[in-house]
Each structure stands twice: as C-alpha cells, then as structure tokens.
C-alpha cells in the first residue's frame, strides 16, 4: 500500500468518530453559545435578538424600580459552593480511593479482575435508584440511624438527609469508582521493586509514599481527580435528592433556567461559564501536576 493511500485510509477510519463528535458534541455546544447571546422568550425558547444580557445577569441585578444595575454575588456564591463541594468530594475520594486501589494492585494477578468487577458493581444500577437508596439509609428513620439507636450509640436520630453532609456523601458514593479505577491502573503498573529500593535506601513508609509512589502514580491521580471533580461540579440528581434543594448548586441552577425560570439564554450562559471555569482549573492543575513530576 502506498503512503498516500495509507494516510487516506487512516483518515477514512477516523471519519465515524469525527462525525459523532461533530454531530453530538460540537453542534450542541454551538447551539448553547448562540442561545447564550439571545433574548429569552416569555414561555421558554429564545427570541432571535443578540444581547449580552445573560452574562450581565450573572454578576448584576436589575433594580425593579429604576432599572439600575447592582453588583450581586448570588450566582458566584452558588458557583463557589459547588466548587467547594466538588473539591471536597475529590479530596475525600482520593483519600479513600488510594488505599483501595493500592490494596487491589497488590493482590495476586488472578484476584485483581474480581476486585475491579466489585468496584464496578454500582454502575450496574441507575444512578437515580442508587441515590434514592442512599436516602433510605441516611434518613431520620433510616437504616443508619436505626442501627445507631439500637446500639445505644445515639439517643435520637442524627439529621443527615437534606444537609450538605448528605450531598457530599452522595457525591462521594457516586464518583468513588471513577477515582479508584485510574488510580488502580497506574498503581498496577508501578514497579514495586522501586518501593523496596526506597526502603533499602533508608526511606520510611511515609517517605516512600511521598518520594516514590505518589510521583510515579501522578498520571492516575490526575486522571482520577478530573474524573471526579468535573462531574461532581455539575452534578444535578444527587444534590437535588439528598440536599433537598435547600442549597442551590450549579447543576440545579442551570436546570432551573430551562424549567421554571424560563430563561434559556441565562442557562446557556451559566453552562458556558462553568465550562470556562473547568477549563481554566484544568489547565492550572495539569500544568502544575506534570511540572512537579518533571522536577522529581
């Protein structure tokens, strides 16, 4: 086969993927970008009239009486809260997922696939059903409280459901496998003789972890963190059900604009701002993390 036809056939092979990405990735994104600079129609939808109103609304509130703009942090607060929850979820996922992945990676090779299978079991059921099941466990007369009362550990139920704790618990439960799997993939590739070499050269357990294991599994840590942080930031179902809608988060906020808010452009603008935030955070995170790997 000649080089030119070889290249052409390779290009042909990528065509289906390019078509799918264009049709279901690029086009919807373009729709969102265009809608975000249009005027909202009264009962949903858009009026074809270009205006930056949606972006202005994100930071400023229009006075009902004199139409002047006042700076408001309402939406920024929602974004900040979402970021905090997502960051907390990521950190706790990492703290719980790393030992789990380490355990899995150090099992005999035959056993490892069974552990992976166990980790993926939650994916077999719908997220909504699983979140409702969590609700049954943590509600006031739920399994957890009943059990603790039966143990006489607590005199009356602890209120967990419809609190921030419930949201983070739910996010944690939903996204932990996304942390464990990439961590496992890089820990499984780790040459454990390097760990022994570290111990041999007078490094304590903590030093071996910090100087050898963590730098060498950094790609897995980065991948896992991104896979948890990004979906957790825009999570919709979990905060809605477990948080009871007391504290608005980004996912819920955006959904509202397309529902009761009837402000599609504002929803599109919020979605794009979220995307921009994620991209900037990503850029800093990856640059920082890979930089540290190189400097050993």
């Amino acid at each position, binding site marked *: 086969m000649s080089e030119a036809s070889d290249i052409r056939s390779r290009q042909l092979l990528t065509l289906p993927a390019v078509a799918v990405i264009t049709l279901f990735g690029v086009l919807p994104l373009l729709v969102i970008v265009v809608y975000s600079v249009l005027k909202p129609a009264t009962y949903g939808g858009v009026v074809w009239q270009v205006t930056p109103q949606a972006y202005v609304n994100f930071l400023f509130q229009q006075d009902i009486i004199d139409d002047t703009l006042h700076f408001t942090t309402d939406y920024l607060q929602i974004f900040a809260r979402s970021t905090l929850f997502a960051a907390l979820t990521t950190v706790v996922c990492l703290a719980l997922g790393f030992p789990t992945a380490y355990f899995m990676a150090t099992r005999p090779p035959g056993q490892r696939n069974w552990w992976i299978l166990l980790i993926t079991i939650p994916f077999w059921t719908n997220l909504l059903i699983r979140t409702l099941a969590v609700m049954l466990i943590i509600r006031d007369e739920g399994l957890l409280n009943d059990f603790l009362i039966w143990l006489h550990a607590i005199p009356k139920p602890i209120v967990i459901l419809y609190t921030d704790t419930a949201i983070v618990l739910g996010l944690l439960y939903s996204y932990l496998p996304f942390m464990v799997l990439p961590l496992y993939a890089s820990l499984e590739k780790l*040459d454990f003789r390097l760990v022994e070499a570290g*111990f*041999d*050269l007078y490094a304590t357990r903590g030093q071996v972890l910090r100087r050898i294991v963590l*730098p060498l599994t950094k790609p897995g840590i980065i991948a896992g963190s991104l896979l948890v942080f990004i979906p957790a930031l825009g999570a919709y179902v979990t905060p809605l059900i477990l948080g009871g809608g007391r504290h608005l988060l980004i996912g819920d906020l955006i959904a509202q604009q397309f529902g009761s808010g009837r402000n599609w452009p504002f929803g599109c603008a919020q979605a794009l701002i979220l995307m921009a935030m994620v991209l900037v955070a990503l850029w800093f995170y990856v640059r920082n993390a890979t930089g540290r790997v190189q400097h*050993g």
Partner: protein
Amino acid sequence: MHGQAPGPATVAVNSSDAPAISIEQVSKTFGGGADMVRAVDDVSLAIRRNEFFTLLGPSGCGKTTLLRLIAGFEHPTHGKLLLEGVDISALPPYQRPVNTVFQNYALFPHMTVAQNIGFGLEMLGRPKAEIASTVDAMLKLVRMEELKNRRTSQISGGQQQRVALARALAPRPKVLLLDEPLSALDFKLRKDMQIELKRLQSETGITFVFVTHDQEEALTMSDRIAVMAKGKVLQVGSPRDIYDRPAERFVANFVGDTNFLSAEMGSFVASTGSVRLPSGVTLSASLPEGGVRSGKVTVVVRPEHARLTAETAGKPLTGRLENTVYFGTDTHYHVRLISGEPFMVRMQNTRDQVARFAVGDTVGIELGDAALQVLRD
C-alpha cells in the same frame, strides 16, 4: 528529613571482631499447610568483613530469599541475623546499614542519575553539601561523571548497572548485597563488570554479598562461596575448595564438569585416605570435612586431573573412547569405562600433538596425585 535519622546510626558497633554478617540457624517458610515452601532451611553462615562472599545455586535454591532476609525485605521464620554482632532480625530495611543492587537495578525513573545516587543520603538526613560531594565521588568511582544529569531512562543497561552500584554504595553500607546484578548484561559487558565489581570491592573495603547462579562468575570473583540447594547451604569454602574438594555430589555437579566413580573406602587418617577402584588399583584420595564412613563411597575426579594413555596395563581406569570434542584450547575425550560408567578427560592441545586417539580405541586413564575427592554421601 526527620530529626532522628534512621539507618546506620541506629546500629552501634559493639565488637570489632564480630563477622560482618552472622546467620544463625535461619529458616524462612512461605505459605502454610500443604503449600508451605521452605525457602531457607536452617542455614548458618558467617560472612567475614571485607569479604567478597557469593551465594551460588540454581534458581529456587533460596539464595535470593537469603539475600532478602539480610536486606530486611523478609523476616526469618526461625533463627537470628547479626550484623557486626548486633541482632538485626527484627529491624525494617530502612534501619539496616545494608544496601542492595537489585537484579533489574530498580532505579527511580522520575529522578536523574545524581538524584538516584543521592537518595539514600538524603533519606538519612545528611547535609546538602555532603550529599553533593558524595554523589560526585560516587560518579567518579563508577566513571559516570558526564551522565550526572541524565534521566535513568536515557542511559544504557551497563550504565544503569553502574548507577545502581553507585546508589547502593553512596550511603557507605556495612554490607553491599548484589542480587544477580550481571545477569541482564551481555557477555562482554558482564566480563568487564566482573572486573569492575572486584575493583570497587577492594577500593571501598565494603563486604560484598553476591548472589549468582553462574558458577564461573562465582569462581572468578569470590573470596568464599556458599553453594546452596533446596534452601540449604551444602558447602562453604574458597573457590579452590569448592572446585577441587567438593564435599557433595550436588556441589561437584553444579560447579564445573565432573566424573563420578564408585569405589571402596580403604584406610584413612585425618583428611586423606586410600580408595580401591573396581580395577583393583588403590589410590590416595582427600576426604570431605567431617570424615567418611567405610564401605562403598563415591569419588569425584575433575576431567583435567586425568590423562588418556594408549597402554591399558596397570592403569586405574580403562575403557573405550566413544567421542572426542575439540574446543580449541583443549579437547574433551568421552570414555565408557569397563564398569559401564561414563568418564570425561580434558587435555590441553599442543602444537606438536598428533591426534593419537581415535573413536573406538581402547584407552587407559591415568589419574594425577590428589585427583580423587571422596564425597560425603
């Protein structure tokens, strides 16, 4: 890194004449029940200071497990390990003043050559200036100065080997453990590194414990060798002792080419005695340590300690020449003895020598003085 540095400082030298390493009735078993493997079986050894000591044996003989026990990666099921008289059996590897050169080097891929070499000293909390000067000295010792800032993935196998050596030597361990470090190198490089290792050992004065399955490597490099099989140490001695005076069939077989003869034990005094061969000829033979029993014994003869002759009368062994193999420097003659046993003779080739022996000839075999060694079993 911490206020109290782990490592060498924690093991005080108490008696200056104690061996570098004393292994006292050490056993190590893996698994349990029916699957239990006795990797090291009641081994006792004393490794002297400044010695190049080799653990030699086939794979699975327990030599690497023994090395890992000294390093601290494994802990003995029974017995004690002493380093210069101090019991280190319970210490983790990072508290033992012992360093290892791993079989596949195990260099840290995310660090440069210099960072690898300095790692041990850094972990010991040594000042930066001292680390820098030691790293430079080590790079010079292994002749790698110009590759200081390279990543370990950017250097060749032989260079990685040198970095691994420098890294293990940098903290100046009391004992350096080497786990088949030359097995991944090609023949030429291996020969060079054998000489290099000997040089490093004499220059640093550090006790080397070397693990190999290569008998030639063991013979050329070691001050003393321990031959191991099935978790046990069969014989400890200088390369000469091991080669010329093997005490057991396994040792004789594993180290070099060997002929086995059955014979009748005659009289014996101390370490020598006389044995009667089936031909009726009585010869003197050296005896293994611990003496022998009388009656039937096995005698070993190295091929180069025997000589082929055309005449057969009065020779201790006679047989039929079955095959000759030319090796350049010498020729191997494979003889079938009258008793049915095979026997190999190795004779040096000389220019003026004509091929005097043809396959099918009946030949006699002469045995040199002290050629015979009686086995213990």
